[in-house]
């Protein structure tokens, strides 16, 4: 299936030469004289014919039906119906079929638009095709792009440049400077001097942990005159858990992380945070970058045989794939769009390649064919993605349980046992039951247990282990009702007495509830089988007087354990016992006879929630097989373990699906399948097939990517960008032919070689870069030099940068003493069972938090208002570089935003304890800028405080706001 690009290119090259010759020939000798027969035929007859009849709809950008007829490639590839011409076989060529009008569904040109071809013209076409369809037109096909042959020569795709031998001390940061200084000298640029220590520690602290240094940290650094002073700071920062939050956030930008799915209702992804935290953690423990990449693509498979925690981590890491954007009303119908998002991000993130351009047609600029795209598509189609739910298909499924394997085994066993027991009880009920009574309970009605025949409940003979079962069922047109139950059993010949009401204070001690008040079970029936209610709810509707056993919703049993009436959805009378059937599922109370006895039974069933429905029904049965009690009690004992599975943590992650190859989708349309494409690697990198058809091929993919130096180059460039504001290549997501070649290619390759040599340690790479003179330069430069290299491509100075949205917000909280540095987990989304999101009423929320801004809940369909204002990442597509824009609406934030005002006020409130204004002013400058105010600044602040009306808090909050809004706070020098 590999595209025969080689042949094309060879042909193209030949033809280009030919065209040039042709031109010369035309000038020198006249057209006819020098041309071969088929060339003459084409130039004299075929080309004019195609231009006249076909080009209107099939040339340039006009490609009706996907067909271009202005290039050879155009008809070779063909349109939606396949290749238009089969060289040598005119009768098998669709073009001939179309123009001759023999097929009524395929008549060309269309009657409305053009004249039909003359018979003579059709014959010409046939002759041309029969002769082999010579066609020199390859200019458009060649396009501006790169051919497969050119791949090994392209700066990003070739092997790493050999180490440069003349510079010694390879492996140290001096090598970076040696390379940079060389190019500076060539440009006649002079680098700036090293920056001062205060600026440097502020710079490196933000760059590594995204927070300002404390005044104490600055002082310690200033006081440390040792040669290792800077190294100590770097090590301290790299060891801080806040490092992972800062650099993990970079990664989340690139992988377009979001906490919602992005389909039409933008459903929450309550488990996606595990991936987010895995990323932060991976940076913190300096997981080697090749493993970091492999785990995200195939962690579930790579860790299959590892210990449990590594296995879970591997699963969570594939959250990278899982968080792909979902599309449409019914996600399943737009799976091809999700796959595009997956492939698009995979290419950009790991390889700096825009692979998804090849979804509809071969890549215009890079040698990536549509087959390449669908070869990768097959790998992901063989992978099971989690389903986040959508309006058309309901709630989430296919989440991956994170569970200890041993526990899982125990649960599986318990589940089997539960199913056996449930079936046994079901058959005992159906085979050995005597109905004592049954009745409908009308809306708001009350019916005694003895409804049917009074004497059935008097002097009833029961044997130890038999069961009395009171089942309450929903009626036809109404889901269910809260139903009051009173039920007393007394020993007709003694003074023993069992009453449901005596369970009210101790309902939650167990189910089965075993005490001196008897043995009672609370169950419901689903498909005729009994299930225990295992969910224990110590309060209902935030009322601790109400307790319940339930499945989470209905069915349930419920008590009002107080001496007062409790108004909730209805008024629940004091000290009362209720059941609530589900819309389909009856709920039942079972009493297990503790002894052989003759009993009298009294009680009633009442609709406690008259609300316009049609009440409930009940059935009261005596199960006369003494086995049933024991089975029921065992069932009750094992049920909680089985049900605990649904409460176990899950990951939003992928697992292996059904291995399959997919057909190419012509013009990206899933309705137009073409040939099936085997799963394999990109042909530009060799096109290797997956190793076994029985797996998805993700492990192969992870390997192919991480064996290619490209993946390391791309990451090195990102890290460099993180420290210098721009990458060595300024197109970090595009290393293809449209990307920008690095001005310092040797440097990129040298750093990449170091990265490889250090086992892809990202922290080592930081160290290497941070210790260079280039990183530690001053930002101040003479304006003539700035003009000479306005983009600072040659790194003669440090480029000032604005703090990111997250850094600004975190700094405000940090300075105010309000930043919570703990690790955040999930968001306070509404519980999944309550989701009823529709396109008309989609999920939308903004959650406040004092934790680091990298933890803010980010939605795909509704931008977070703060992050959108300050150029936060786009959660819909990979953000490799954040734009910085300065707009007045940002300034409005610093004038009027309540959050901003709060942080300033918090900070200012602590100034009160200080002895005098000058100390206060110093304190603000130290906290915000880690330096003392200058005399001029002291004066401005002094004047402000005396001129500003209002009390202490108002004055000092205002001054704090002004300084928190100032340029110095927002820019790193």
């Amino acid at each position, binding site marked *: 299936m590999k595209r025969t690009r080689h042949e094309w290119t060879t042909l193209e090259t030949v033809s280009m030469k030919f065209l040039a010759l042709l031109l010369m020939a035309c000038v020198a000798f006249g057209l006819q004289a020098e041309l071969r027969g088929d060339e003459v035929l084409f130039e004299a007859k075929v080309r004019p014919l195609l231009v006249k009849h076909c080009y209107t709809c099939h040339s340039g*950008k006009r490609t009706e039906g996907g067909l271009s007829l202005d290039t050879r490639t155009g008809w070779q590839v063909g349109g939606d119906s396949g290749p238009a011409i089969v060289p040598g076989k005119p009768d098998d060529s669709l073009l001939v079929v179309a123009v001759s009008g023999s097929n009524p569904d395929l008549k060309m040109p269309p009657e409305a638009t053009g004249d039909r071809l003359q018979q003579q013209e059709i014959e010409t076409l046939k002759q041309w095709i029969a002769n082999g369809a010579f066609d020199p037109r390859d200019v458009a096909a060649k396009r501006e792009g790169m051919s497969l042959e050119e791949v090994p020569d392209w700066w990003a795709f070739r092997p790493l440049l050999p180490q440069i031998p003349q510079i010694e001390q390879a492996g140290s940061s001096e090598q970076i400077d040696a390379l940079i200084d060389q190019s500076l000298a060539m440009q006649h640029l002079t680098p700036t001097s090293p920056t001062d220590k205060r600026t440097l520690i502020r710079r490196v602290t933000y760059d590594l942990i995204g927070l300002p240094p404390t005044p104490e940290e600055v002082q310690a650094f200033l006081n440390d005159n040792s040669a290792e002073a800077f190294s100590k700071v770097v090590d301290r920062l790299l060891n801080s858990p806040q490092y992972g939050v800062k650099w993990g956030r970079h990664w989340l930008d690139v992988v377009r992380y979001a906490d919602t799915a992005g389909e*039409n209702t933008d459903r929450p992804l309550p488990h996606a945070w595990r991936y987010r935290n895995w990323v932060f953690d991976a940076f913190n423990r300096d997981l080697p970058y090749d493993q970091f990449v492999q785990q995200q693509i195939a962690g579930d498979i790579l860790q299959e045989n590892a210990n449990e925690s590594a296995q879970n981590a591997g699963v969570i890491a594939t959250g990278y794939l899982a968080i792909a954007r979902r599309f*449409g*009303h019914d996600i399943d119908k*737009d799976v091809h*769009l999700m796959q595009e998002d997956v492939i698009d991000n995979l290419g*950009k993130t790991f390889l700096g390649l*825009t692979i998804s*351009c090849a979804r509809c047609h071969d890549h215009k600029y890079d040698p990536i064919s549509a087959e390449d795209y669908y070869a990768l598509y097959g790998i992901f189609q063989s992978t099971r993605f989690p389903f986040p739910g959508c309006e058309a298909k309901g709630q989430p499924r296919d989440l991956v349980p994170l569970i200890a394997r041993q526990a899982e085994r125990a649960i599986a066993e318990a589940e089997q046992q539960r199913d056996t027991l449930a079936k046994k009880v079901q058959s005992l009920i159906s085979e050995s039951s005597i109905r004592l009574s049954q009745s409908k309970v009308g809306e708001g009605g009350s019916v005694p247990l003895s409804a049917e025949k009074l004497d059935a409940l008097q002097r009833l003979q029961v044997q130890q282990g038999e069961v009395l079962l009171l089942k309450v069922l929903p009626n036809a047109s109404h889901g269910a009702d809260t139903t009051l139950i009173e039920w007393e059993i007394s020993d007709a010949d003694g003074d023993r007495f069992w009453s449901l009401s005596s369970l009210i204070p101790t309902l939650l001690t167990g189910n089965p509830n075993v005490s001196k008040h008897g043995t009672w079970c609370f169950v419901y029936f689903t498909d005729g089988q009994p299930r225990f209610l295992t969910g224990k709810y110590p309060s209902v509707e935030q009322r601790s007087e109400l307790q319940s056993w339930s499945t989470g919703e209905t069915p349930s049993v419920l008590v009002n354990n107080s001496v007062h009436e409790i108004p909730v959805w209805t008024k629940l009378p004091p000290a009362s016992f209720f059941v609530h059937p589900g819309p389909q599922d009856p709920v039942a109370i079972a009493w297990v006879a503790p002894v052989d006895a003759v009993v009298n039974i009294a009680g009633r069933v009442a609709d406690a929630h008259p609300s316009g429905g049609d009440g409930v029904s009940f059935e009261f049965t005596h199960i006369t097989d003494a086995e049933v009690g024991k089975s029921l009690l065992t069932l009750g004992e094992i049920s909680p373990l089985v049900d605990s599975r649904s409460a176990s943590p899950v990951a939003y992650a992928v697992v292996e699906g059904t291995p399959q190859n997919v057909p190419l989708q012509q013009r990206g349309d899933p309705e137009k399948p073409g040939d099936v494409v085997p799963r394999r690697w990109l042909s530009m990198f060799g096109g290797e097939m997956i190793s076994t058809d029985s797996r998805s091929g993700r492990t192969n993919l992870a390997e192919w990517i991480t064996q290619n130096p490209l993946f390391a180059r791309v990451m090195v460039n990102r890290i460099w960008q993180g420290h210098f504001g721009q990458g060595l290549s*300024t*197109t970090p*997501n*595009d290393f293809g032919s449209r990307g*920008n070649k690095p001005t310092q290619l040797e440097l990129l390759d040298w750093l990449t070689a170091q990265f490889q040599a250090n086992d892809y340690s990202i922290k080592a790479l930081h160290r290497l870069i941070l210790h260079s003179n280039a990183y530690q330069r001053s930002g101040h430069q003479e*304006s003539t030099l700035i003009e000479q290299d*306005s*983009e600072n491509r040659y790194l003669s100075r440090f480029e*000032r940068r604005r703090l990111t949205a997250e850094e600004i917000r975190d700094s405000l909280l940090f300075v105010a003493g309000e930043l919570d540095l703990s690790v955040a987990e999930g968001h306070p989304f509404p519980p999944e069972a309550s989701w009823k999101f529709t*396109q*008309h009423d*989609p999920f*939308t929320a903004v959650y406040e938090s004092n934790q680091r801004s990298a933890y803010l809940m980010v939605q795909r*369909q*509704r*931008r977070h*208002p703060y992050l*959108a204002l300050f150029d936060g990442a786009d959660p*819909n*597509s*990979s953000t490799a570089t954040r*734009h*910085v*824009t*300065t*707009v*007045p*609406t*940002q*300034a*409005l*934030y*610093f*004038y*009027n935003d*309540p959050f901003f*005002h709060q942080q300033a006020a918090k900070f200012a409130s602590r100034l009160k304890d200080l002895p005098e204004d000058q100390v206060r002013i110093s304190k603000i400058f130290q906290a915000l800028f880690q330096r003392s105010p*200058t005399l*001029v*600044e002291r004066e*401005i*602040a002094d004047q*402000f405080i005396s001129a500003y*009306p*209002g009390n202490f808090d108002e004055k000092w909050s*205002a001054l704090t706001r*002004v300084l928190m*809004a*100032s*340029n*110095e706070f927002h820019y790193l020098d």
Partner: protein
Amino acid sequence: MLNSTLPRRQFLQSAVAGSALFSGIFQQLLASESASLPSGEPHFTATAKRIIFLFMTGGVSHVDTFDPKPALTRDHGKEIKADHPEIKDRPGYERIYLKRPQWEFAKHGESGTEVSTLFPHVSTCVDDIAMIRSMHTSHSNHYNATLGMHTGSFSFARPSLGAWTSYGLGTLNNNLPSFVVIAPKQTYAGTQVYSNNFLPGAYQGTLVVPGSEPIANITPRVSSDRQQLELSALNAFNQSHLKASSDLELTARIRSFETAFGMQMAVPEAFDFKQETAVTLDSYGLQPGQTTGFGWQCLAARRLVERGVRFVELIDTGSSGNWDAHGDMLSHVSLAKNVDQPIAGLLKDLKQRGLLDDTLVVWTTEFGRTPFNNTADAKGREHHPWAFTSWMAGAGVRPGIVHGATDEHGLRAVENPVHVHDFHATILHLMGFDHEKLTYRHAGRDYRLTDVSGHVVQDILI
């Protein structure tokens, strides 16, 4: 066309976005760069300087409003066949029947353009309107069609029409944003309908929600004299920070605070209708003191374009309670009443002030509604991407014409069909842009609003 100079460009744009005083510097700096940069200079003479874009959420039925179909009345109840995306594999929709329009149509004005009784006020403006009865779109879902109408992309998030326009043209008033969206609620595509996406953030729409604080953080939290003191101190500290080094980005940020200070006055002033006469208010159907409703949005739009805002989008309703009349077409009555008089008031007001000459008014929805349903007496209509009506007025648009037509039942756009991409190409043309040349390099590709298609609808241009 922006590839190599991109960072510089963004930087310059950001400088100018915050500052009136810097436009001179901006022009100077630009002079040394490529001439094709979008710098507020259109590709050719524009007839429209600004746009008011009226978006009706949910899908307005064309056959009940602006596209008269007598044959549909005649053939009511007749069964038809259609390979329609909304009925494909849908239980209960195996058979479909034509459903007649529920409102009468009549000819209006000198042009004689027919409009139904749902829009009695807009009917009086038909001589200024170019009605496009042959619109069609690429998707039958609300989300996709809404996204498509705003961004030219039917699946993926892309910059919106308003963002492209302000990217291309810049702003005319530095105290106000260049792109404003007035919406009481969000459409089906959320904030994406006014997102900048990969364009710089300066080009995103500023959301105005009718009510007490129309723009986030616009209401001063301290008195003006205090804020003045804060601004002076801020400037003083910033100057001290700037010292000798002249950095345009820092200076731009300083200016942005002055602009924002001005915005706190300019925005309330723009939304303060006290100076409007009773006659004007009345023409929009507004009561004195009213601060919500579509009439308020329309008058606010006029006041914003008067003050130099480039692109004002008005969204009538949100993702529920809108024109999505599956259940009963009668819901069109109150929705039409909500917008009819305000729209007519806006057109007349613009015309009377001479603003209609260079202000383009666009009225549209995401798709039409089916001229059929699964029973002849069904009360509602389904989503219909094959045909709908949009219209334009003012600024270089031929007045009083009808362009294109649907078939006799309003099922398909058959004469001069206008796709959403063509619609966008035409709007950009009126704003002075060749839609194929207004591009932005992102991830290795030059993106444009019209993707890879779009033809200017020449017939509706003067």
